[in-house]
């Protein structure tokens, strides 16, 4: 069973979305590990390596995604892990291409259906396999 670490990075406490996505992924057959709130890029990367996960999902709704999401990629790679980092949340269209240039595997925005979420995660996992 593939394992996915889902995380809230930074100060944003809005956890409705991440909990819903956690259940969607669990129902789709993944093992889901949730970090809890107020993580840093370093703690997320460390947890991803410790738990030997296949992907990281970040939920970001506060506007800090351009600062924090690429740092998670950097910190993860610095620990020798090459796994997809997927961002879900409120991300303006203009930022999506920039995030992908900075190493983010996929970006899911408001209105994504369960099927789309599962498909994007599967595609990201396949691309890194």
């Amino acid at each position, binding site marked *: 069973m593939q394992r996915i670490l889902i995380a809230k990075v*930074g100060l944003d406490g809005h956890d*409705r979305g991440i909990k819903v996505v956690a259940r*969607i992924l669990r129902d789709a057959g993944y093992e889901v590990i949730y970090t809890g709130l107020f993580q840093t890029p370093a703690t997320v990367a460390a947890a991803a390596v410790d738990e030997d996960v296949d992907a990281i999902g970040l939920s970001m709704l506060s*506007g800090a995604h351009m*600062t924090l999401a690429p740092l998670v990629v950097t910190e993860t790679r610095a620990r020798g892990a090459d796994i997809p980092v997927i961002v879900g949340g409120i991300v303006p269209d203009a930022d999506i291409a920039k995030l992908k240039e900075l190493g983010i595997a996929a970006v899911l925005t*408001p209105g994504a259906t369960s*099927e789309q979420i599962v498909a994007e995660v599967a595609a990201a996992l396949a691309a890194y396999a």
Partner: protein
Amino acid sequence: MATNREIWERAFLTSSIRDADFMTMSGIPLEPVYGPASDDSEGPTEYPGQYPYTRGPYASMYRSKLWTMRMFAGFGTADDTNWRFKEIIKAGGDGLSTAFDMPTLLGIDSDHPMALGEVGRCGVAVDSLADMEDLYAGIDLDKTTTSMTINSPAAVIFAMYVAQAEKAGVHRSRLGGTLQNDILKEYQAQKEFVFPPRQSMRLVRDTIAFSAAEMPRWHSISISGYHIREAGSTAVEELAFTLANGFAYVELAMAAGLPVDAFAPRLSFFFNAHIDFFEEIAKYRAARRIWARWLRERYGAALDRSMQLRFHTQTAGVSLTAQQPEVNIVRTAIEALAGVLGGTQSLHTNSMDEAMALPTERTARIALRTQQVIAHETNVAHVADPLGGSWYVEHLTDEVERQAEELFSYLDEIGGGSMLEGVIKGIEDNWFQGRIADSAYDLERRFNTGRRIVVGVNAFTEGSEEEQIPLLQITNEDETRQLKRLEQVRHSRDQAAVDAALGRVRTEAADPEINLMPALIDAVSAYATLGEIMASLESVFGRHVEVPTI
């Protein structure tokens, strides 16, 4: 014996009436309220301003005064938000509502490593009294009421507000406004907590007691269902959890020796206005009735004002879509109308772009205009509780109340007869958090199966691929400016005075008998920063860590 109608008439005649033509567009004259002429008719015989206040807290409702159009704003530095506040006042908004950024909400300074990327993004950055002075500069706080959405560090921000107003020449006793200060719903829903629940409740107690003694126009707490609903609860859960939290605060203050009628009149509420129009109206009506009954019967309140639930409403951010954002104006208008027909005392309408960003000046203006259309064009404010007596709405009101009472019974039971203990236990057991997550997932599944339609998202999607509307951009320049400002404050203050004031905060925090507000006002007046004061408190109170559950 006088009938309810006659009692209402007497109360109405003593009320002031605003200047408007109270008739339909065809010229049909309108009574201030409609209802049965005698008390023996079938159905409800209650009038507005009569216990248990199902139909409204006041006899005259919007005949005396329309709701306060209170628009929530805050971004960037204090200067940026001060400018937006002045725009709101110019555009006809009549109360301010302050949104703070994430570092401020969590009580850390802008130069804290965790604040990176968050400074000024979701609200205004406030690090010290200097920022608070800039935030309200040039605004007459004697006349303008201010609401502040702040919880974990509420006592400290409150101290800053009092200190800056007094520096500007307005004595605390004349300040009117609301501190959100509702920590319980942070553990349940919004998750911006710092200290453990019981230590946080001590700060809430201190702010309630301080306000009751020194600030007669101040609402020390705004018991908030808004965030519970946004986190995914149903309307019934929003209502029940919010009122249960309210009962917990009442028990907290009574346990501290305050008579219920000394503080209950200053408690206020904050509800969501979601898209299920009639259920929302029923929720507000049931809220007033439940609060009145519990305050009188369980807590022994004697003053009418202690039993009258007054509330602020915000339309549901979570109902807005990123797709075809202009359609959000329609959603917001319908939700705002529910708040008005439900008798809200103040209202914030969301802007169409809020599924994506903070509002621009233009979208915020349209949102305010939405309220003005409801207030001045539709005539819906002419008659109080216009849906009272509707079989449908009365049934929904009763049913929402019945289901809420079931949830209260559960909390009362796990609390061993104390709602305060029941609510804290419900938080510690993740009961609230679990129920909210279950309801959120249930709704999500209904969206996914198409059983619930969201226009532009899972149906009627033509046009959803269009270019996004222009969004407010918050640049990193704000963060840089704020860091510079904070550095200046740290350099120009008297460090010995700061150290002494922080020492006093730690000493007094360790003694639960002491009210911390005077020490906090001293500390902020010495320009101790928010982060320094919160760290001092944390050294005594410790920190809350939520057990992550899916």
